[in-house]
């Protein structure tokens, strides 16, 4: 009898951990039954195409949060990268390489301010998000700027194309996710990110180069954000300085809903993947319901975030007795 009870308790605990996946599955079943259009390939592939952008940002943000930090500048970086592609992109190479380079440099900037000048990540990335946005507005004269005509069609492939029916952004997203999972599980650097987030001082005394780790995670976040921005620009065929609305919040939400602890040290990229999908599916379902879509999504997301955080805290409490 005791053994049976123990097993039930374990099952319940596991369900709690698998929460997001279950909710996702439930939603999918619900939607498939309710909406005819839901199950079509066109719809599904659209959802995936859409979430891939925020998903990429979320991967970067997850790295930063696991290391114990915060990155609020991803939205502005995505915008900046898209605008850079439009304005600076004379040829296809520059149109892709320059924004990515900018993303890396922007991330480095965040990392340097956090590690060298020792400003808290929240304020650092808040400030840089304003600076990035400002630069983007300057580059484009505050106007939506189309991708230069010579390369526009080739550039559009990035965001609008398919390979064997699967949207390219999704392929990129999945590849980046897989790389992230690999890094987090099998590389020294990846493990050090977790160590720094869990107990920075202990990790330092164990020989982990905490400052270098932090520098790298912010750079990664800048890179993924700029990649996401490129895809956005490719879909819009333009660099939009007012785009990427709320991306940093959505990326953060996906990360936390996916099981990453806001204080760092714990997190799974698979979880972020599920979180991103969850966000996307909820949006899709709400789209199908009516015109209230995006706002109800926000309400639900916000409430979901609160629930997840509170549950996380409770579990954390039992973790430490």
């Amino acid at each position: 009898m005791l053994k049976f009870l123990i097993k039930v308790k374990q099952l319940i605990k596991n369900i709690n951990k698998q929460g997001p996946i279950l909710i996702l599955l439930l939603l999918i079943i619900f939607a498939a039954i309710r909406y005819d259009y839901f199950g079509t390939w066109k719809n599904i592939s659209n959802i995936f195409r859409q979430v891939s952008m925020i998903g990429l940002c979320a991967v970067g943000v997850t790295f930063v949060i696991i290391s114990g930090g915060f990155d609020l500048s991803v939205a502005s970086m995505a915008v900046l990268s898209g605008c850079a592609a439009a304005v600076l992109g004379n040829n296809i190479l520059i149109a892709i390489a320059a924004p990515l380079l900018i993303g890396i440099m922007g991330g480095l900037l965040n990392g340097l301010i956090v590690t060298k000048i020792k400003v808290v990540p929240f304020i650092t990335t808040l400030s840089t998000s304003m600076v990035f946005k400002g630069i983007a507005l300057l580059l484009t004269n505050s106007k939506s700027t189309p991708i230069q005509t010579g390369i526009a069609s080739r550039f559009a492939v990035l965001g609008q194309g398919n390979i064997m029916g699967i949207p390219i952004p999704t392929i990129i997203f999945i590849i980046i996710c897989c790389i992230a999972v690999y890094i987090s599980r099998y590389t020294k650097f990846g493990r050090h990110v977790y160590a720094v987030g869990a107990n920075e001082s202990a990790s330092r005394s164990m020989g982990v180069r905490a400052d270098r780790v932090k520098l790298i995670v912010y750079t990664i976040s800048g890179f993924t954000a700029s990649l996401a921005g490129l895809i956005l620009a490719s879909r819009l065929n333009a660099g939009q300085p007012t785009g990427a609305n709320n991306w940093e919040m959505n990326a953060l939400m996906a990360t936390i809903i996916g099981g990453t602890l806001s204080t760092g040290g714990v997190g799974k990229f698979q979880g972020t993947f599920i979180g991103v999908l969850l966000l996307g599916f909820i949006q899709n379902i709400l789209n199908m319901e009516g015109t209230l879509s995006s706002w109800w999504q926000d309400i639900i997301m916000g409430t979901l975030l609160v629930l997840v955080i509170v549950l996380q805290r409770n579990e954390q409490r039992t973790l430490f007795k």
Partner: protein
Amino acid sequence: MKSSNQASLNQLLNSYGYLFFFVIIAIAGSIFTPNFISLNTLRNVLVQMTPVLITGLAMTIAISSGGLDISIGSIMAVSSMCCAKTLSIGILPAIVIGITVGIFFGFVNGFIISRFKVEPIIITLATMIAGRGIAQVLNEGKVFIFYEPQFTDWAFIRIGNIIPIQVLVMLIAILIIWFLVRRTVFGVYVQALGDNVKAAGIAGINTYAITLVVYVICGIMAGVSGIMETSRLTIADASQVGLGIEMDAIAAVALGGTPLTGGVANIFGTVIGCMTIQMITVIINMNNLSTAYAYLMKGIVLILAICIQNLDVRGR
């Protein structure tokens, strides 16, 4: 000894840095902008600054207690919409409802933060997102236009035909918050909490209750600010009211010298900080520069302000 001179300089910078920024920006403004020093400019700065100041004051209390509230913009929006929609019942009831909405959100924030010990940034992030959504849903995503001249004309009252009424409101708000922080038991407790939470606990301060009240105050002030904006704009636009205001508020607090980790609140500093931030916006506008420069300047100024704060880290 060299290091003690350095330390005193750092302390000085820390204490009065905000004035430094204010003066620099003011001088820059008057050099580069025609008509900068004029009554009109001053009036514009003051009127537009009202929401930032009121939310900045609230933010000062939140930050001083060791926390943060980034949901104030969204609370403004919900209050604004609720107030606007209930104007038909009567102006006073509508205002009361608007403020009650603010209290409700503040209570939710404060309760979860103190009871579940969740990080303020995350919870207020959630409230911010959900709140904005609620504000939009209340009028199906559309702007709410109303006609209530008694309510809206109020925003254009000028005392003695010169001073906008908003200035009076701001002065009252500043006085109230200043009084709260400097002359009440609550104010001392909040700052003690932010400066050394362990010591505050030993001294018998009820950290749960204080935290709760802090966020309720934030909610109330967000509500007031939202209602005032509604009056001034004559419409309730859930997508615009308070959008991004938390950034400006935080920048003002940081500029004003209140430590971001919590501790002694610098009300005067926040006020000057608000004016500095607003001056940046006005300079940009008056010089017909793109808003891009506003973003750039605010971001850079914020980083600089924190660097200066970090110079003097004694006692932390």
